């Protein structure tokens, strides 16, 4: 079945990129069931910079994983760009992630054995681009994050902020629809964190990237166009007391 034919494809309003409907997520810890998300609904318009806040264990990262197709809901639907990604096979979901999702991790998760450029090229390996085209795309992405001159450096030769920039370059190299950032400034000092937030803001404003950012940091959330709070598996638009 073609991706476009997945159930629900025609139901999207054009400005809604992400639609989460009545999503439950239950984890099994031995014989115990942990309900992380319960009947959660969420709509994210295209081009939004959304911050997700909430206490530890509130389900922020779980929600992010569901939207990014890294995990599947126990119940409910997840649509991105009109596509029911919770219905896709593992193979198709992997292919969908490669085309539509850019991921930025708290601890960068770069391959220590690859240079910055080769790290950025990783998602491009899954595209039909030639070797020289992959290199061009990677260098362009590194240029956007201000690290074109560090392309031959290995992660250990870069500062935390620079490593996170490489992580962002890797995330945008394939020009994805959606950028998912899980505590992107969580491992950085204030200055480096601000630089990363500047970068994300610029990507949102200048390139129209839809960004969902999980954060504990209220200063980081302030950069977003909207902030939602997650507590006990439910979303609110008001901070949790």
């Amino acid at each position: 079945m073609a991706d476009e034919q997945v159930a629900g494809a025609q139901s999207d309003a054009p400005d809604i990129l992400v639609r989460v409907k009545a999503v439950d997520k239950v984890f099994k810890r031995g014989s115990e069931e942990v309900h992380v998300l319960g009947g959660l609904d969420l709509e994210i318009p295209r081009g939004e910079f959304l911050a997700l806040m909430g206490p530890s264990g509130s389900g922020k990262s779980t929600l992010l994983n569901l939207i990014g197709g890294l995990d599947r809901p126990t119940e409910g639907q997840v649509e991105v760009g009109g596509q029911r990604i919770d219905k896709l096979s593992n193979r198709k979901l992997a292919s969908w992630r490669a085309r539509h999702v850019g991921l930025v991790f708290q601890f960068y998760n770069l391959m220590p054995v690859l240079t910055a450029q080769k790290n950025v090229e990783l998602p491009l390996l899954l595209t039909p681009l030639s070797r020289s085209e992959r290199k061009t795309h990677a260098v362009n992405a590194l240029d956007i994050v201000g690290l074109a001159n560090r392309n031959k450096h290995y992660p250990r030769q870069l500062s935390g902020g620079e490593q996170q920039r490489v992580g962002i370059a890797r995330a945008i190299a394939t020009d994805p629809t959606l950028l998912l950032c899980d505590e992107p400034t969580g491992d950085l000092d204030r200055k480096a964190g601000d630089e990363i937030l500047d970068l994300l803001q610029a990507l949102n404003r200048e390139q129209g990237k839809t960004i969902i950012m999980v954060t504990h940091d209220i200063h980081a959330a302030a950069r977003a166009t909207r902030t939602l709070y997650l507590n006990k598996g439910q979303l609110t638009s008001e901070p949790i007391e």
Partner: protein
Amino acid sequence: MKYLYLVWSNLKRRKMRTILTLLSIMVAFLLFGYLGAIRQAFSQGVDVAGVDRLIVRHKVSIIQLLNESYEPRIERLPGVANATHQTWFGGIYQEPRNFFAQIVVNQDEFLDFYPEYIVSDEHKEAWLATRTGALVGSGLLKRFGWEVGDRIPINATAWRRKDGAPTWEFDLVAVYEGAEQGTDTSQFFFRYDYFEESRAGGSGLVGWYVVRVEDPDNAAEVAAAIDNEFANSPAETKSEPEGAFVQGFANQIGNIGLIMTAIISAVFFTILLVAGNTMAYAVRERTNELAVLKAIGFTDRGVLGLVLGESLVLAGIGGVLGMVLAWLLISMGDPTGGSFPTFYMPADSVFLAVLLIFGMAFVAGILPALQAQRLQIADALRR
């Protein structure tokens, strides 16, 4: 191919571990290649033995002689094209460690039976014209640095001369080359007429007969007919295909093939554990990275392929290095200084090595690869 640098980079992650594993695999394949040449040397002649040739020897033992008169009787039997006799001389050239086969042959018939021995017309004529002439393999010529025209003295052990002299002297007049790689070029043939007129005893007796059959498919029936012809005589015969005869010779030392297989199996089993351990650690220590690869779009099968690819590159490099090193050592020559008539890496060893490389890569890598394939992204990223 575009994933090769990723595979290669991962192998460089723990250089010392990779190098040690590569060395282990290399040593295993070095042993495999080198022992393959030794196995081939022990079974020398079996592969190249003529399918249309039978060896007829005394039923009791090869050292018991047969009467020269058997030849016309054998040739009269149905299915026999022709026959010729040969005799083991067993002399010593200078000192016992210079061992090589010296065989007395009927110079008029011999070369017709062995098309795998290539002799120039000039040398053939010289041999037929020289009563004391010797036909020598090119390998033997090289071993002792002989040249055509040399006089070769050989001390008798069993066959004394009529004149009481301990030494038989031969004129090196002809050299033969092998038509195939496995053809034995370490032998020394000389003429029966010279032997017969000069030996002190055993006149009219020969060592064995080489019989050429008209149809190799009927070799068994012809062999039975020959043995039946001489049944209940003072010298009963045992006839068998040349290949079986040569194999029987090799088996006097022991079942070399079985011994080699046992050694190689033990070595490969150990190396398999080493390589498997390396791959298991390589996957376990980068669970998070494999999860990231999956997160950015690598499929489960893609990750499985990457891990198996690493295993294949490891086994491939180690295997090829080992086989090349074995080939170089084999090229340096017979390690016994001449006891092996032929010493080379047989083609089946190379083919088996390729199979072993793929087999080792698969067995060592499949469990870690499946583990990587089954990795749940969200779980692995939390670790």
